[in-house]
Protein backbone atom coordinates (compact mmCIF):
# COMPACT_ATOMS: atom_id res chain seq x y z
CA UNK A 1 0.00 0.00 0.00
CA UNK A 2 2.48 2.61 0.95
CA UNK A 3 4.35 1.69 -2.18
CA UNK A 4 1.24 2.06 -4.42
CA UNK A 5 -0.01 5.30 -2.78
CA UNK A 6 3.50 6.44 -2.54
CA UNK A 7 3.99 5.68 -6.22
CA UNK A 8 0.79 7.50 -7.23
CA UNK A 9 1.62 10.44 -5.07
CA UNK A 10 5.05 10.54 -6.65
CA UNK A 11 3.55 10.46 -10.16
CA UNK A 12 1.11 13.29 -9.41
CA UNK A 13 3.92 15.33 -7.88
CA UNK A 14 6.06 14.86 -10.98
CA UNK A 15 3.25 15.96 -13.28
CA UNK A 16 2.52 19.03 -11.15
CA UNK A 17 6.15 19.92 -11.06
CA UNK A 18 6.42 19.60 -14.85
CA UNK A 19 3.32 21.75 -15.37
CA UNK A 20 4.60 24.30 -12.88
CA UNK A 21 7.98 24.46 -14.57
CA UNK A 22 6.33 24.80 -17.97
CA UNK A 23 4.14 27.65 -16.68
CA UNK A 24 7.13 29.37 -15.11
CA UNK A 25 9.09 28.94 -18.33
CA UNK A 26 6.18 30.40 -20.34
CA UNK A 27 6.01 33.39 -17.99
CA UNK A 28 9.75 33.87 -18.31
CA UNK A 29 9.54 33.72 -22.12
CA UNK A 30 6.71 36.25 -21.95
CA UNK A 31 8.75 38.61 -19.77
CA UNK A 32 11.82 38.35 -21.99
CA UNK A 33 9.72 38.80 -25.16
CA UNK A 34 7.99 41.79 -23.57
CA UNK A 35 11.31 43.32 -22.65
CA UNK A 36 12.61 42.87 -26.18
CA UNK A 37 9.43 44.16 -27.87
CA UNK A 38 8.72 47.05 -25.52
CA UNK A 39 12.31 48.15 -24.90
CA UNK A 40 12.97 51.63 -26.31
CA UNK A 41 15.57 51.66 -29.08
CA UNK A 42 18.80 52.57 -27.33
CA UNK A 43 22.07 53.52 -28.88
CA UNK A 44 25.28 53.01 -26.97
CA UNK A 45 27.75 55.83 -27.43
CA UNK A 46 31.40 56.06 -26.39
CA UNK A 47 31.63 59.75 -25.49
CA UNK A 48 28.65 60.35 -23.26
CA UNK A 49 25.10 59.45 -22.37
CA UNK A 50 21.88 59.34 -24.34
CA UNK A 51 18.61 59.78 -22.46
CA UNK A 52 16.17 56.83 -22.72
CA UNK A 53 13.49 59.31 -23.70
CA UNK A 54 14.29 62.77 -25.12
CA UNK A 55 13.27 65.52 -22.71
CA UNK A 56 11.09 68.41 -23.94
CA UNK A 57 12.61 71.88 -23.97
CA UNK A 58 10.59 74.97 -22.98
CA UNK A 59 10.39 77.95 -25.33
CA UNK A 60 13.25 80.44 -25.24
CA UNK A 61 14.46 83.39 -27.24
CA UNK A 62 18.12 84.11 -27.93
CA UNK A 63 19.95 86.12 -30.60
CA UNK A 64 21.74 84.36 -33.44
CA UNK A 65 24.98 85.53 -35.01
CA UNK A 66 23.05 85.63 -38.30
CA UNK A 67 21.08 88.60 -36.94
CA UNK A 68 17.92 86.52 -36.47
CA UNK A 69 16.25 85.49 -33.24
CA UNK A 70 17.15 81.98 -32.18
CA UNK A 71 14.26 80.06 -30.67
CA UNK A 72 13.18 76.48 -29.98
CA UNK A 73 11.85 76.27 -33.54
CA UNK A 74 15.43 76.67 -34.80
CA UNK A 75 16.38 73.43 -33.08
CA UNK A 76 13.81 71.40 -35.05
CA UNK A 77 14.44 69.53 -38.28
CA UNK A 78 18.06 68.57 -37.64
CA UNK A 79 20.34 67.32 -34.87
CA UNK A 80 22.09 70.01 -32.85
CA UNK A 81 25.36 69.87 -30.96
CA UNK A 82 25.49 72.78 -28.53
CA UNK A 83 28.76 73.91 -26.98
CA UNK A 84 28.52 76.31 -24.04
CA UNK A 85 31.42 78.74 -23.64
CA UNK A 86 32.60 82.31 -24.24
CA UNK A 87 35.13 84.04 -26.46
CA UNK A 88 37.31 85.42 -23.64
CA UNK A 89 38.23 81.82 -22.87
CA UNK A 90 41.62 81.33 -24.56
CA UNK A 91 42.20 77.68 -23.91
CA UNK A 92 39.44 75.09 -23.87
CA UNK A 93 36.84 77.01 -25.94
CA UNK A 94 38.92 77.55 -29.12
CA UNK A 95 40.40 74.07 -28.74
CA UNK A 96 36.92 72.53 -28.58
CA UNK A 97 35.64 74.63 -31.49
CA UNK A 98 38.65 73.55 -33.57
CA UNK A 99 37.86 69.97 -32.62
CA UNK A 100 34.21 70.38 -33.60
CA UNK A 101 35.44 71.62 -36.98
CA UNK A 102 37.37 68.35 -37.31
CA UNK A 103 34.24 66.44 -36.26
CA UNK A 104 32.18 68.27 -38.87
CA UNK A 105 34.73 67.30 -41.49
CA UNK A 106 34.79 63.70 -40.24
CA UNK A 107 31.00 63.44 -40.57
CA UNK A 108 31.23 63.97 -44.32
CA UNK A 109 27.78 64.01 -45.91
CA UNK A 110 26.16 63.45 -42.49
CA UNK A 111 27.36 66.91 -41.40
CA UNK A 112 24.36 68.36 -43.26
CA UNK A 113 22.11 66.65 -40.67
CA UNK A 114 23.85 68.30 -37.70
CA UNK A 115 24.05 71.93 -36.66
CA UNK A 116 26.94 72.95 -34.44
CA UNK A 117 26.00 75.80 -32.13
CA UNK A 118 28.37 77.86 -29.96
CA UNK A 119 26.27 79.22 -27.11
CA UNK A 120 27.94 82.11 -25.28
CA UNK A 121 27.06 82.51 -21.62
CA UNK A 122 28.88 85.86 -21.60
CA UNK A 123 26.39 88.22 -23.29
CA UNK A 124 28.02 91.20 -21.56
CA UNK A 125 31.15 90.92 -23.73
CA UNK A 126 30.01 88.65 -26.58
CA UNK A 127 27.73 90.54 -28.95
CA UNK A 128 26.08 88.35 -31.60
CA UNK A 129 28.24 90.09 -34.20
CA UNK A 130 31.66 89.49 -32.62
CA UNK A 131 30.50 86.05 -31.53
CA UNK A 132 29.67 85.25 -35.16
CA UNK A 133 33.04 86.48 -36.43
CA UNK A 134 34.79 84.46 -33.74
CA UNK A 135 32.84 81.28 -34.43
CA UNK A 136 32.99 81.50 -38.24
CA UNK A 137 36.77 81.52 -38.03
CA UNK A 138 36.41 77.84 -37.07
CA UNK A 139 33.64 77.01 -39.55
CA UNK A 140 31.29 79.19 -41.60
CA UNK A 141 28.61 76.53 -40.96
CA UNK A 142 28.67 76.96 -37.19
CA UNK A 143 26.01 79.12 -35.61
CA UNK A 144 26.73 81.29 -32.59
CA UNK A 145 24.02 82.40 -30.21
CA UNK A 146 23.70 84.33 -26.99
CA UNK A 147 21.03 86.32 -25.21
CA UNK A 148 19.84 87.91 -21.99
CA UNK A 149 20.83 86.09 -18.82
CA UNK A 150 17.21 85.33 -17.95
CA UNK A 151 16.81 83.45 -21.25
CA UNK A 152 20.16 81.69 -20.83
CA UNK A 153 19.08 80.61 -17.34
CA UNK A 154 15.78 79.20 -18.65
CA UNK A 155 17.53 77.31 -21.40
CA UNK A 156 20.20 76.15 -18.97
CA UNK A 157 17.57 74.67 -16.69
CA UNK A 158 16.08 72.83 -19.69
CA UNK A 159 19.30 71.67 -21.27
CA UNK A 160 21.14 71.00 -18.03
CA UNK A 161 23.98 73.50 -18.27
CA UNK A 162 25.15 76.00 -15.66
CA UNK A 163 27.50 78.96 -15.66
CA UNK A 164 28.86 81.47 -13.17
CA UNK A 165 30.71 84.75 -13.36
CA UNK A 166 33.98 84.91 -11.43
CA UNK A 167 35.26 88.46 -10.74
CA UNK A 168 38.71 89.32 -12.12
CA UNK A 169 41.22 92.03 -11.29
CA UNK A 170 39.30 94.62 -13.34
CA UNK A 171 35.55 94.82 -14.07
CA UNK A 172 36.22 93.68 -17.64
CA UNK A 173 38.65 90.85 -16.87
CA UNK A 174 36.17 88.54 -15.15
CA UNK A 175 36.13 84.83 -15.94
CA UNK A 176 33.22 82.49 -16.57
CA UNK A 177 32.86 78.97 -15.19
CA UNK A 178 30.69 76.85 -17.44
CA UNK A 179 29.47 73.30 -18.04
CA UNK A 180 31.85 71.38 -20.23
CA UNK A 181 29.56 68.82 -21.92
CA UNK A 182 28.36 69.05 -25.51
CA UNK A 183 24.56 69.03 -25.50
CA UNK A 184 22.77 66.89 -28.04
CA UNK A 185 19.32 67.96 -29.24
CA UNK A 186 17.24 65.77 -31.54
CA UNK A 187 15.37 66.89 -34.69
CA UNK A 188 12.13 67.20 -32.65
CA UNK A 189 13.87 69.81 -30.47
CA UNK A 190 14.11 67.44 -27.51
CA UNK A 191 17.14 67.08 -25.24
CA UNK A 192 18.68 63.80 -26.40
CA UNK A 193 21.86 63.51 -24.33
CA UNK A 194 25.34 64.71 -23.57
CA UNK A 195 28.82 64.18 -24.93
CA UNK A 196 31.39 64.62 -22.18
CA UNK A 197 35.11 65.46 -22.16
CA UNK A 198 37.83 64.48 -22.72
CA UNK A 199 36.71 64.70 -26.34
CA UNK A 200 38.23 62.49 -28.99
CA UNK A 201 37.45 63.49 -32.56
CA UNK A 202 37.10 59.90 -33.83
CA UNK A 203 34.74 58.90 -31.01
CA UNK A 204 32.61 62.01 -31.48
CA UNK A 205 32.33 61.32 -35.21
CA UNK A 206 31.36 57.68 -34.72
CA UNK A 207 28.89 58.54 -31.92
CA UNK A 208 27.22 61.27 -33.96
CA UNK A 209 26.99 58.99 -37.01
CA UNK A 210 25.29 56.38 -34.84
CA UNK A 211 22.92 58.89 -33.26
CA UNK A 212 21.98 60.43 -36.61
CA UNK A 213 21.24 56.96 -37.98
CA UNK A 214 18.88 56.18 -35.09
CA UNK A 215 15.20 56.63 -35.90
CA UNK A 216 13.90 59.52 -33.80
Amino acid sequence: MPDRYGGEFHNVSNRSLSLGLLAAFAVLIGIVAGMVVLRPATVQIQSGTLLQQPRPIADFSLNGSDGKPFTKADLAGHWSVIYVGYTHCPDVCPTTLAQLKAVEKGLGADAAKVRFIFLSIDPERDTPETLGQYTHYFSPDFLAVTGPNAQLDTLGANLGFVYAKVPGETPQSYLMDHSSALILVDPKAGLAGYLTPPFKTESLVSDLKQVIGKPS
Partner: protein
Amino acid sequence: MKYSAPLAIALLACAACAPAFADCKGLKVEDAWIPEGPPVAAVLAGYGVLSNTGDKPLHIDSVDGADFGSVELHQMSMDGGMMTMRPLKGLDIPAHGSVALADGGKHLMLMNPKHPFKAGDGSSIGFHCGKDVTQVPFSVRAQP
Protein backbone atom coordinates in the same frame (compact mmCIF):
# COMPACT_ATOMS: atom_id res chain seq x y z
CA MET B 1 79.09 88.64 20.67
CA LYS B 2 79.42 92.34 19.99
CA TYR B 3 79.26 91.59 16.27
CA SER B 4 76.02 89.68 16.59
CA ALA B 5 73.76 92.73 16.18
CA PRO B 6 75.35 93.99 12.95
CA LEU B 7 75.54 90.40 11.73
CA ALA B 8 71.85 89.87 12.44
CA ILE B 9 71.02 93.13 10.66
CA ALA B 10 73.15 92.08 7.71
CA LEU B 11 71.49 88.69 7.59
CA LEU B 12 68.03 90.24 7.81
CA ALA B 13 68.90 92.74 5.11
CA CYS B 14 70.14 89.92 2.94
CA ALA B 15 67.01 87.86 3.56
CA ALA B 16 64.86 90.87 2.71
CA CYS B 17 66.77 91.61 -0.45
CA ALA B 18 66.94 87.97 -1.52
CA PRO B 19 64.04 88.25 -3.98
CA ALA B 20 65.84 91.14 -5.67
CA PHE B 21 68.70 88.77 -6.37
CA ALA B 22 66.33 86.10 -7.71
CA ASP B 23 66.93 85.49 -11.37
CA CYS B 24 65.63 83.40 -14.21
CA LYS B 25 68.99 81.61 -14.51
CA GLY B 26 68.37 78.07 -15.62
CA LEU B 27 64.96 78.82 -17.16
CA LYS B 28 64.52 77.09 -20.49
CA VAL B 29 61.31 77.21 -22.50
CA GLU B 30 60.76 74.66 -25.22
CA ASP B 31 57.98 74.28 -27.77
CA ALA B 32 56.78 77.82 -27.01
CA TRP B 33 53.74 78.46 -29.17
CA ILE B 34 50.49 80.35 -29.49
CA PRO B 35 47.54 78.65 -31.20
CA GLU B 36 46.25 80.85 -34.00
CA GLY B 37 42.86 82.22 -33.02
CA PRO B 38 40.05 84.17 -34.65
CA PRO B 39 41.18 87.69 -35.66
CA VAL B 40 38.53 89.12 -33.31
CA ALA B 41 39.76 87.07 -30.33
CA ALA B 42 40.36 89.30 -27.30
CA VAL B 43 42.39 86.55 -25.65
CA LEU B 44 44.91 83.99 -26.92
CA ALA B 45 46.65 81.15 -25.11
CA GLY B 46 50.36 80.49 -24.80
CA TYR B 47 51.80 77.01 -24.36
CA GLY B 48 55.23 75.46 -23.87
CA VAL B 49 57.38 73.45 -21.49
CA LEU B 50 59.20 75.47 -18.82
CA SER B 51 62.28 73.74 -17.45
CA ASN B 52 64.65 74.69 -14.69
CA THR B 53 68.15 73.42 -15.49
CA GLY B 54 69.58 74.99 -12.33
CA ASP B 55 70.19 73.62 -8.85
CA LYS B 56 67.85 76.11 -7.16
CA PRO B 57 64.04 76.34 -7.46
CA LEU B 58 62.81 79.05 -9.80
CA HIS B 59 59.88 81.31 -9.17
CA ILE B 60 58.23 83.18 -12.03
CA ASP B 61 56.44 86.21 -10.58
CA SER B 62 54.84 87.57 -13.69
CA VAL B 63 54.73 87.39 -17.47
CA ASP B 64 54.35 90.15 -20.05
CA GLY B 65 54.56 90.81 -23.76
CA ALA B 66 54.78 94.02 -25.80
CA ASP B 67 52.17 92.66 -28.26
CA PHE B 68 49.52 92.24 -25.57
CA GLY B 69 47.64 94.50 -23.19
CA SER B 70 48.51 92.11 -20.39
CA VAL B 71 49.62 88.54 -19.84
CA GLU B 72 48.58 86.31 -16.97
CA LEU B 73 49.28 82.77 -15.88
CA HIS B 74 46.09 80.75 -15.61
CA GLN B 75 45.04 77.32 -14.49
CA MET B 76 42.23 75.57 -16.34
CA SER B 77 40.56 72.67 -14.62
CA MET B 78 37.49 70.52 -14.87
CA ASP B 79 35.57 69.95 -11.68
CA GLY B 80 32.28 68.05 -11.60
CA GLY B 81 31.56 68.72 -15.28
CA MET B 82 32.42 72.43 -14.93
CA MET B 83 35.26 74.10 -16.77
CA THR B 84 36.92 76.61 -14.49
CA MET B 85 39.80 79.00 -15.03
CA ARG B 86 41.70 80.80 -12.30
CA PRO B 87 44.67 83.21 -12.37
CA LEU B 88 47.87 81.88 -10.80
CA LYS B 89 50.05 84.02 -8.55
CA GLY B 90 53.31 83.06 -10.18
CA LEU B 91 54.74 79.68 -10.98
CA ASP B 92 57.31 77.55 -9.17
CA ILE B 93 59.65 75.29 -11.09
CA PRO B 94 61.68 72.91 -8.90
CA ALA B 95 65.40 72.50 -9.45
CA HIS B 96 65.94 70.25 -12.48
CA GLY B 97 62.17 70.07 -12.86
CA SER B 98 59.71 71.28 -15.44
CA VAL B 99 56.16 72.60 -15.70
CA ALA B 100 54.05 72.19 -18.82
CA LEU B 101 51.83 74.98 -20.09
CA ALA B 102 49.31 73.01 -22.10
CA ASP B 103 45.75 72.86 -23.35
CA GLY B 104 43.35 72.15 -20.49
CA GLY B 105 45.89 72.93 -17.75
CA LYS B 106 48.25 75.76 -16.89
CA HIS B 107 48.65 78.25 -19.70
CA LEU B 108 49.49 81.83 -20.54
CA MET B 109 46.50 84.08 -20.98
CA LEU B 110 47.53 86.64 -23.63
CA MET B 111 44.98 89.41 -23.32
CA ASN B 112 44.05 92.18 -25.73
CA PRO B 113 46.41 91.43 -28.63
CA LYS B 114 47.56 94.70 -30.22
CA HIS B 115 47.16 93.17 -33.68
CA PRO B 116 45.77 89.92 -35.09
CA PHE B 117 48.17 86.98 -35.21
CA LYS B 118 48.45 84.46 -38.01
CA ALA B 119 50.23 81.12 -38.16
CA GLY B 120 53.90 81.88 -38.85
CA ASP B 121 53.95 85.09 -36.79
CA GLY B 122 55.99 85.36 -33.64
CA SER B 123 55.86 87.25 -30.38
CA SER B 124 58.32 87.73 -27.54
CA ILE B 125 57.06 86.94 -24.05
CA GLY B 126 58.95 88.03 -20.95
CA PHE B 127 59.14 85.76 -17.89
CA HIS B 128 59.98 87.76 -14.75
CA CYS B 129 61.84 86.26 -11.80
CA GLY B 130 62.36 89.05 -9.30
CA LYS B 131 64.13 91.83 -11.17
CA ASP B 132 65.40 89.48 -13.81
CA VAL B 133 63.54 88.77 -17.01
CA THR B 134 63.99 86.17 -19.72
CA GLN B 135 62.53 86.91 -23.13
CA VAL B 136 61.20 83.84 -24.90
CA PRO B 137 60.24 83.78 -28.59
CA PHE B 138 56.79 82.24 -29.12
CA SER B 139 55.63 81.16 -32.57
CA VAL B 140 52.02 81.24 -33.74
CA ARG B 141 50.79 77.94 -35.16
CA ALA B 142 47.50 76.70 -36.53
CA GLN B 143 45.41 74.59 -34.11
CA PRO B 144 46.33 70.94 -34.65
